[in-house]
């Protein structure tokens, strides 16, 4: 699966205006909720997403990768409206929107969602077909609905019989397909996929990813693809956003980000992926752990774990820098991309390109 590189179709002339756009969105969660803390003005909050910007158009796949807890799912929930941003704005077709209760029916139908825990997203007391039909508008006649359910199930390569079964009777791959069918049921332009293939075996993962690619071609849907698995993202993503501690630290065409990462975090993530080639060096796990979101480091959030960090990184929060085709929030992005930056731990900071594709 990882052997087929992502096509770089995101930049060609078929690009549409973005369906959904995030502009500098921020989301905080209160972590201490006791009355005493509030009275003392000591209410702590954890920043799940800070200042992230992203846009998704029809027909393209935007991958979001990062470690657990980096804010990927929060980002997805801001797009779907499950959460409302504390700062910045979420735009649908250029209109600023809030959470789902304030969105119009038309706006809600723009977005389909495949939930992280697909089985949980089906009511276990409802047949799969009934759950899919819940996405339909009210205008359809009962027999049209049945036809449409059968059609949707066939599109995701499921037997129409599955429509009358219950979620607990389906296998992991089947329920995932049913989840995709449901997300497509109201003809969305954008589908948010939160870890759509985690928890599936590799063979099933591959067929689901193929299915997603085919559906995208057929319906020209945009995907916001959230995953911690770089191999999976690589297969589907046209553009990639790498998240760390609630920030997007690097973004650009997926292939370029994978081939020539210009942020040390991306580099470290790629190095942590086991290679297919046994002659490659073994994977290196990232040292340290992600920062506590209620107590973020000063300056660049990655500096405590970064081999290249120096005084400037501790003090100053980096802005995006353009490095060839990608953008990177690193003070030393240029030097890293050129391979001229050495790390400050005394060893040679020689860049080791990620070679799993060669």
């Amino acid at each position, binding site marked *: 699966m990882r052997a087929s590189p992502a096509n770089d179709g995101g930049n060609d002339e078929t690009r549409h205006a973005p369906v959904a756009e995030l502009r500098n969105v921020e989301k905080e969660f209160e972590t201490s909720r006791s009355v005493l803390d509030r009275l003392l003005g000591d209410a702590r909050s954890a920043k799940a997403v800070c200042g992230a910007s992203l846009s998704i158009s029809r027909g393209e796949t935007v991958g979001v990768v990062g470690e657990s807890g980096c804010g990927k799912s929060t980002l997805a929930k801001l797009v779907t409206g499950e959460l409302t941003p504390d700062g910045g704005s979420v735009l649908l077709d250029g209109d600023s929107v809030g959470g*789902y209760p304030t969105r119009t029916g038309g706006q809600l139908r723009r977005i389909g*969602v495949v939930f*992280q825990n697909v089985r949980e997203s089906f009511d276990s*007391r409802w*047949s799969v077909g009934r759950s899919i039909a*819940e996405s339909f508008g009210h205008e359809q006649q009962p027999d049209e609905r049945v036809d449409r359910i059968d059609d949707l199930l066939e599109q995701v390569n499921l037997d129409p019989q599955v429509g009358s079964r*219950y979620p607990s009777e389906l296998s992991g791959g089947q329920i995932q397909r049913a989840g995709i069918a449901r997300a497509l049921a*109201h003809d969305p332009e954008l589908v948010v996929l939160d870890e759509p293939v985690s928890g599936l075996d590799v063979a099933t993962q591959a067929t689901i990813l193929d299915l997603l690619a085919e559906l995208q071609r057929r319906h020209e849907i945009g995907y916001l693809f959230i995953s911690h698995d770089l191999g999976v993202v690589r297969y589907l993503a046209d553009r990639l956003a790498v998240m760390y501690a609630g920030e997007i630290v690097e973004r650009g065409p997926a292939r370029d980000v994978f081939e020539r990462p210009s942020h040390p975090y991306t580099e470290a993530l790629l190095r942590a992926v086991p290679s297919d080639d046994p002659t490659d060096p073994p994977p290196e796990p990232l040292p340290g752990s992600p920062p506590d979101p209620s107590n973020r480091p000063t300056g660049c959030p990655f500096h405590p774990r970064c081999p290249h960090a120096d005084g400037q990184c501790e003090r100053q929060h980096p802005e995006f820098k353009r490095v060839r085709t990608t953008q990177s929030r690193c003070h030393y992005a240029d030097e890293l991309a050129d391979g001229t930056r050495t790390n400050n731990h005394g060893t040679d900071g020689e860049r080791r390109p990620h070679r799993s594709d060669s």
Partner: protein
Amino acid sequence: MSEDAANSAPHRPVGARWRRWYEALTTTRLTKLGAGLVCALFALAVFGPAVSPYDPAAQALAHRLEAPSLAHPLGTDQLGRDVLTRLLHGARLSLGIAIAVTAVRLSLGTAVGLVAGYVGGWVDEALMRLVDTLLAFPGIVLALVIAGILGPSLTNVMVALAVVGWASYARLVRSSVLSVREREFVTASRLLGRSRAHVLGRHLIPNVVAPVVVLATLDVGGVILGTAGLSFLGLGAQPPTPEWGTMLASGRNYLRTAWWLVNAPGVLIMLTVFGFNLLGDGLRDALSPTQSAHIEQL
């Protein structure tokens, strides 16, 4: 619903649901015993009075305090009335009361629990403090006070028992709603623009029904016991109504000479409560191991 319709319509085939309940009822021997006792009681209440040749209120002073015999299988009381006939009529009365009271408790408690759990905020806070207050009193004592204030009658006993008992339903339903409403299928439904009423009616209520039915089954036994207890104390049914508690109370005066007057209704009350409790326990264990925790707390 036919098999064909079940496959073509996007709605749940009814058969699967009933099969689940049937399987729940027949899993263990004790549950079967409970179900058997309850079924037998219903049969007695429905058909018994029609089969019995005696009138439950007709006095026959010539035959007073007769020991059990073929003509009177459970003997006669101090006014010569056939004890078995009175028990059968009493079964009809007790079951009717128990079902009515449980239905009121269930609807009131479920409504309050749904509102508290789904609306949340100060509404939840206010309703739950009321529930806490009610649960803080021992139920039967509170019912005794209410029935005492309202005056002795069967209707007042029913009111008292209904007022006292809905709180545990409210708490159970609220806690179930709180957990179900965070599930992703509720989010999925809301993200499609479905209304709160749709979510409440189609997702939340069906998902909280099972533990409520279990609690109601256990409750029927309790209500029968409560009715009999209050009647025994003179607050409920008045003689000559053939109510089990009332029969027990009047038979108490003849405990030394006519043991059947007390033992017959006593044993029947015991078997009834026993049956409903076994049935409820069995349902609880069978329907979901995780739901048992909810009920255990009540």
